[in-house]
């Protein structure tokens, strides 16, 4: 219970996605820029490097006010190593489909862990 109480200040939903995904999520109201001018979203374009994505992901996971990190699954594939090492409860990382890349359940880390339990 103490660990849940420590996460009460986590209220933001961060997003790392392509332009369509981030536009839609901003329309839904998740967009936030704090007093240090740090936005809680990153638009991944063709010129965005893997290092930028990794740095942004790590920054979001270290922020004390972020509760959920939404990331397009095809972008998550580019930083799969870091994602697989990440096992904290909060912020929760959720992979979501994009317009051009439908969701692939075979790459869902949640389902993979359940399959391991059944010995698959």
């Amino acid at each position, binding site marked *: *219970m103490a*660990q*849940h*109480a420590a*996460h*009460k200040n*986590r*209220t*933001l*939903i961060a997003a790392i996605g392509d*332009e*369509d*995904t*981030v*536009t*839609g*999520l*901003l*329309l*839904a*109201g*998740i*967009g*936030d*820029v704090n007093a240090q001018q740090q*936005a*809680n*979203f990153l*638009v991944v374009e063709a010129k965005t490097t893997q290092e930028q994505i990794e740095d942004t992901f790590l920054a979001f996971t270290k922020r004390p006010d972020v*509760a*959920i990190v*939404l990331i397009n699954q095809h972008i998550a594939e580019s930083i799969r190593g870091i994602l697989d090492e990440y096992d904290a*409860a*909060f912020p*929760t990382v*959720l992979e*979501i*489909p*994009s*317009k051009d890349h*439908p*969701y692939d*359940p075979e790459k*869902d880390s*949640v*389902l993979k*862990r*359940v399959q391991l*339990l059944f010995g698959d």
Partner: protein
Amino acid sequence: MDAHGEACQEADSSLLALLDCLAEYQGARASSGALLRQGFFDLAVARRSAGYRWISPGRHHGNARCTASVAIDGHSGDIRLVRSGSGHAPDTAARVADDHDQGVRRRRHQHASDNEGSDGAASQLPPEESECAPADPDDPLLWFGVLVPPALRDAQGRFRAALDQLVRLAQLKAQLAQRRQQAHRAIEAARA
């Protein structure tokens, strides 16, 4: 029932609870995916009418605070979506839009309201005053202008619904992790 039997029963119960949670997770995945697909389609329709560059993350107001956030329960760890929105008096831009719209509608209904007295009908509020709700000044739609394509409003509705499902997914993911651990411990105890 001996201890081994009880351990096996416990393991079965844990596995069934895990599978129930998994089914719920997959259902939430499917519904969120469908809502996102529809939202992407509406966004594409909106861009076709308003212009591609007009509808982009670059329109985000630099100092905007989020209107959709989450609240984590300190005891149970449950996650729920919280929407903030004043719903109070609209800001200037929205007020101008409302006045403009009401003016247009008043002209159409002015004849009807003039006849109310002669008909002896009870006076009623003009329909537009009862239907027109004050615009939310924090609504992200306002970043894209006062008159936005209807498809953009539809897209906002889809993405809002998808966000509800995604927050539920986050909740279910945490529950799945917990039940997986419980099932693992129960299976190990049954094997012992």
